[in-house]
Structure formats: structure tokens, C-alpha cells
């Protein structure tokens, strides 16, 4: 008798079931990715309906991008992101702390969790359209401000750098703070209640507890939130695009990197757009590397420094 059924190999079924993902990833993500990188070395665009290229031009696209306003747009993106991110993380931290604090006994936590997450469910473009109308010079916000006597003349929100940038920041804040809150709540709930109890017995007040216990304990998650937010911020596009009609007005101060990329795609300039994408890819890649390192350490609080410290202590 042959021992045909002696060893049953289930592994192939595993591969079989994850195959669809790999196939679709390969077709819809990997090939376009390689294509993008390939085209970034070519002069390839459309003039009218006549196609120019693809002609191989080496790294000329990369050089001319460095000579363009790319860095200015990168700075714009960063500023817009910071304006939104700082209130986002602060409010999220405070809310998360309150929601999980058993002694505060906030009623309807579940309800508020849903409500603060809601703005994220609205399409960014619809959200931007709404703000565009609300904050237009003759819009409702100006009318309210004038009728309660705060300002005499309508304030031109979208005509000023300050107004436009803060609106974009505000919208990003509104859309994302719920998301961060929920993530940070999970992190805080993961802290052992023993630590909190001990601190309470030692006479720790709530501010001390926040700064000396909660914050250090959730540091890895906080870092993760920060870096994913930066990567998300790098790709900021929909809100300023709709709010400024794709122009990054005024004076191109709200033009983000992806909007810049988009204006290249208007002329089907695959070469230049490809080169810009590769730059973005490299930056996101580096950031991802940090996240990966941070989430893959098996030391107690997730940071490198702590890992080294722990090692030293063990050696002693």
C-alpha cells in the first residue's frame, strides 16, 4: 500500500485562497507602479491630441522638478498638514483620556464616539464644497459674523492666505480627529488598570497621571498615528483642490504636492508626474520604514531607546 494520505498538505490551500489578492495586487498595483517608475525616465506627454514620446531622457524629469516650485508645494503641504494635525492630536488625546476615564462617568460615550467619527464618513469633496459655500464672501458665515457685529465688512476667507490655509486645516482636523480619538482610546484602554490604581493610591492628580502614565504608555501608538498622518498628509489633495478649484489660490499658497501632480496629469505628462510620484514614494517609503521599525520591536514600550535601556539593565 502506498502511503498516499499519510501527510496532508493544507499549505497549498492557504496559498490558493490568498492568490486572488496577489493576482489583483500584481495587475492593479504592481504593474502600474513599475510603469510609473519607468515612465519617469521618459519624455512622454500629449500636446493637443498628438502624443509626444515616450523618449528616454534619463533623470531630466527629476532635475527639472527640483528646479520647479516642488519644494514650495512640499512646504505648503507641510504647513496645511500641521495646521490641521496639531489641534487634531491635542483634541483627540483629551477626548480619549476623558472617554476612558472611569471616574468621569461620561454618559453616552458610545454616542459621542459615533458623532465625532461622522465627519470622516462625508466625502471630502462634498465637505469642501460645503465650506466653500459657507465661507464665500457673501456666504452665511460672513452674514452671521456681520449681524452679530463682530466684523463690519465681509471677510474674504478664500482670498487670503491665512483664511484659506486655516479653512483647509480646520476641515482636515474635523475629518480626522474622530479617527485619532478612537485609535488613542484603544491604546489607553490597553494600559493595565493596575498602574492607574497604583498612581491614584500614591496621590497622583489627573494632570500628572496624563503626563507621567498615559502619554509614555501610549507612545508607540502615538508615533504610529503621527507617521500615518504624515503619509496621509503628503497625499493631501481633495480638500484644497475643491476649495480652491484646483488652483491653490491665493498666490499658489495652498497648492499641495498632489495638486501639483494633478496639474501635470491634465496634459497627460506621464514622465513628469511619474518623477514626482517617485519622489513621493521615496519619502513615504522612508516614513513607512520608521513605522515598521517601531511596531516590530518586542521591547516593553516599543521604542528603541527603551529597548537599549532594558538591555543595559539586564546586563548589569
Amino acid at each position, binding site marked *: 500500500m502506498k502511503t498516499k494520505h499519510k501527510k496532508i498538505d493544507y499549505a497549498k490551500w492557504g496559498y490558493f485562497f490568498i492568490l486572488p489578492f496577489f493576482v489583483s495586487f500584481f495587475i492593479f498595483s504592481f504593474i*502600474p507602479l513599475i510603469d510609473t517608475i519607468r515612465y519617469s525616465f521618459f519624455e512622454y*506627454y500629449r500636446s493637443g*491630441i*498628438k502624443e*509626444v514620446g515616450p523618449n528616454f531622457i534619463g533623470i531630466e524629469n527629476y532635475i527639472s522638478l527640483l528646479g*520647479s516650485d516642488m519644494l514650495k508645494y512640499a512646504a505648503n503641504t507641510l504647513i496645511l498638514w500641521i495646521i490641521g494635525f496639531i489641534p487634531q492630536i491635542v483634541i483627540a488625546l483629551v477626548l480619549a483620556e476623558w472617554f476612558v476615564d472611569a471616574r468621569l462617568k461620561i454618559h453616552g460615550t458610545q454616542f459621542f464616539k459615533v458623532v465625532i467619527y461622522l465627519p470622516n464618513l462625508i466625502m471630502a469633496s462634498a465637505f469642501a464644497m460645503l465650506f466653500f459655500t459657507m465661507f464665500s*464672501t*457673501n456666504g452665511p458665515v460672513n452674514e452671521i459674523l456681520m449681524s452679530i457685529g463682530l466684523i463690519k465688512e465681509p471677510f474674504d476667507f478664500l482670498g487670503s492666505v491665512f483664511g484659506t490655509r486655516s479653512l483647509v486645516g480646520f476641515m482636515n482636523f474635523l475629518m480626522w480627529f474622530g479617527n485619532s480619538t478612537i485609535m488613542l482610546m484603544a491604546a489607553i484602554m490597553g494600559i493595565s488598570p493596575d498602574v492607574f490604581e497604583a498612581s491614584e493610591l500614591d496621590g497622583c492628580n489627573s494632570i500628572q497621571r496624563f503626563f507621567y502614565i498615559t502619554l509614555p504608555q501610549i507612545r508607540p501608538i502615538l508615533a504610529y498615528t503621527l507617521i500615518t498622518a504624515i503619509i496621509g498628509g503628503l497625499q493631501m489633495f481633495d480638500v484644497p483642490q475643491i476649495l480652491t478649484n484646483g*488652483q491653490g489660490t*491665493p498666490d499658489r499658497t495652498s497648492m499641495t504636492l498632489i495638486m501639483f501632480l494633478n496639474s501635470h496629469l491634465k496634459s497627460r505628462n506621464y514622465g513628469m508626474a511619474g518623477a514626482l510620484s517617485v519622489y513621493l514614494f521615496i519619502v513615504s517609503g522612508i516614513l513607512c520604514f520608521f513605522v515598521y521599525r517601531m511596531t516590530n520591536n518586542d521591547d516593553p514600550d516599543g521604542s528603541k531607546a527603551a529597548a537599549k535601556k532594558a538591555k543595559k539593565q539586564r546586563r548589569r
Partner: protein
Amino acid sequence: MKKRIISILLVAVITASSLAGCGKSSSSDAEGGEEGKVINVYSWNDEFRKRVEAVYPKVKETSKDGTVTTLNDGTEIHWIINPNQDGVYQQKLDEALMKQADASADDKVDIFLSETDYVNKYTDADADVAMPLTSLGINPDTDMAEQYEFTKVTASDVNGVQRGSTWQCCPGLLVYRRDIAMDVFGTDDPEAIGQKVKDWDTLKATAEELKAKGYYTFSSYADTFRLYGNSIEASWVSPGETTVKVDQKIMDWVKDSKEWLDAGYLDKSVKGQWNDDWNKAMGSSAKVFAFLFPAWGIDFTLKPNWDGENGVWGVTNPPQEYNWGGSYIHACTGTDNPEHVKDIILALTADKKNLLKLSKDYAEFTNTRSGMQEAAGDASYSSEFLGGQNSFQYFAPVAENIQIAPLSAYDQGCVELIQNSFSDYFQGAVDFDKAKANFETAIIERYPDITAIQWPE
């Protein structure tokens, strides 16, 4: 990259749906001979379909969802509609045109439409995507003798070969509020108002009068752009060159707009067109005296935004003759239905009876010189919205005198970007030189083959 995938998917869907359509059209009579069974029409809305249904005699019926129109001989017209916004229509059309040579007979584009802003891109002689009318067997000189000359020039390539034709003609007028005219000038008679706005200098004096009473002459600096922009002497980019030449007329527009805005003749809070503030400026509570609109503007833009009674708006002559818009019908190179296409183009753009019907039903100013003269003298063409005024009376002389600016394939971007760049300057966000620099940056971004920008003086 995502866009590419989506477009590939869409193409697949379109192909699949047109193939599915083929199954139905098995019966047909012999009339067409070697004519194809499917006429594919690319357009950005159902405007053209409605016009065809209204006047093309061979239309039998249109499916409920409006995607397929069957003709009497069994040939099907497939309407492939993509919105104009964000250049989606042109993207989809360009994709289809690139595949034209390899497409099977029933998938080939047979007719496509274009607007004045980008008609030049498609009538390009080298690209040769729009067939010369003569190749279809149409002689523009005799068959289309009734058309306004400038519409023929617009649809022609550099060699003067006409490659498209339009049913509409878009001369613009000055549309004004009668109640404001009464208040400021003591009269709302179109002739008297016409005298007050007959040229830029007179209009400026009039603007001062309006300002004294607290009214704006126009809503936004963008309102007057077409009048300057359509009278430029040389095209934005000369054929075969890669330099954008900004015309003196454009700089005049910048200078005058700044002056008018600072003087308070224009509403500072309205920035450009097609936005909420602009729409509100057409409402009864606004303080804006006039708009510059062609026939479609009055019907599609002003009317829906007006919240008062009919008869408050009136039309009179503009300070300068101009044209704004217009949809052109092109026969696509490689079409397998040349006879049908020819038939449709002739019925829609060269048949006086049909065009007059369109004028009556859709309040359009159509492309027939003698027909429009008749309409101007015919009280049945008067408009209820304009208080019984016959606007054709004012449109017709403007149409006769339009000098259309020479076009280039870069017009759409140039027109859009120069207005955007100088918008910051008008509002005081940047100085003049910075606005110029911003235009240069933007235009090179949009058109990679542009190498230099030349300013007048």
C-alpha cells in the same frame, strides 16, 4: 495611475455595452448599403441629442434612458456622454480617438462635438481627427452659405479647410436690469440704454452714474473677459511655435479690470464666474446692473438664478461685439457611416427651417443669417423672460459684426489660467509681476511643450 485603471475599465464597459447594443440591431433595410449599423456620438450632455430628436426627420425613437436613438432605417445612434467638468469629456474623447484606427466598425467614433474653447485642438490639420467637410461631400460654400462666416472660420484648420459645423451661433449682448435703469437713468428703453453702453468710454461714464446710486455695473472682472479675449489679434500660440504670446488686449483687460474694481464699478466680493457669489449677483437683491451674455447664457444661467418676476431684464447692444461659446459637430475620421453623418450635419446646421425651429423651441440664436433676420422682425420670437422683447433684433447685428479671434490648441488653458493668475492681483493678494510669474508657472505646468511666455511691450 488610478485614473488610468478607471479609464481602462470604463473603456471596457463602453465597449461591452456597445457590443451588447449590436445584438439588437439585426434588422435593417438595404438603403445604407455599406453603411455601419451604429453611429457613435461623443458629447458632454444631452443638448445635441435633443436637437437631433427635434429636427432630424429620420429619428424614430429614443430609448428611455436616452443612450440609444433608433433611426427609421434601423441604424442606431449611440450617445456616449461624458461631463465637461475637469476635462473629463476631452480625456475620454482623446482615448477613443487614439483607438479609432484599431476599433471595429461599430465601435468607431462617428460624430463628436467640441466647444469653441477647444475646437482648434480637434480641427488640427496634422492630427486629422475631424474630417474635412468636403470629404463628406458637403460643399461649405454652397451648402452652408447661410451660416455666419465666423463660425466657419472657427471650425477650420490652418489651411482654411472647414472641419466642423455648428447649429448655434453665440453673439453676446448686454443684459440689464430695467428697474435699476429706471432708478438711475430714468428710462429703461433698450435704445436709450444702448446709447449709454455703446463703447468702453461711454460705459465708464455710465458706470460712474451707477456707482453714485450704489450699483455695480458688472458683477465680476471675469464678465468682461470674453469681450477682450475674443478680439485678440494673434492667437495665443502661433502655429508651429512653442511660445505663448500674451496679447495687448489681454493686458488691457487686466489694466481696465483693476481700474474698474478699484473704482468700485465691479462687485469686489464676486470672484470669477460659475460660483455661488456670481449666481447670487443675478438675484433680485443684488446690486448688479448688467451681465454680458449670449443667448444660452440668458436661458441657462440668468433665468434659473433670477428670483423676481419676468420682464425685469432687458437686452441691448454690448460695448463691443463678441462671441461666447458654441458647440461644433465634427465627422470623425474613420467613420463607417459617412452618409448618415453628412445627413445629420446638413439637417442640423444648414437647414434654415430646422434652425428656425430650434430658435423658437430652445431660444437659441442659430446659424442661419437670413433666418435670424426673419426672427428679428417676427414678434413670435419675443421672449417672455425679457418682458416681450425680441432679443434676436439685437443679436443679429452683433453676429454680423463678430471678428473671431484666431484660435490655437492652447486657448482653453491660457484663458483659464490668465484669469486665475490675475485674480490674485485684482484682489491685492500679489503684485503685478508676481501675477505674471504665476501665469508663467501655471501655463508651463499645463502644457509641457510651451517653452517661453512673451508679454507685450
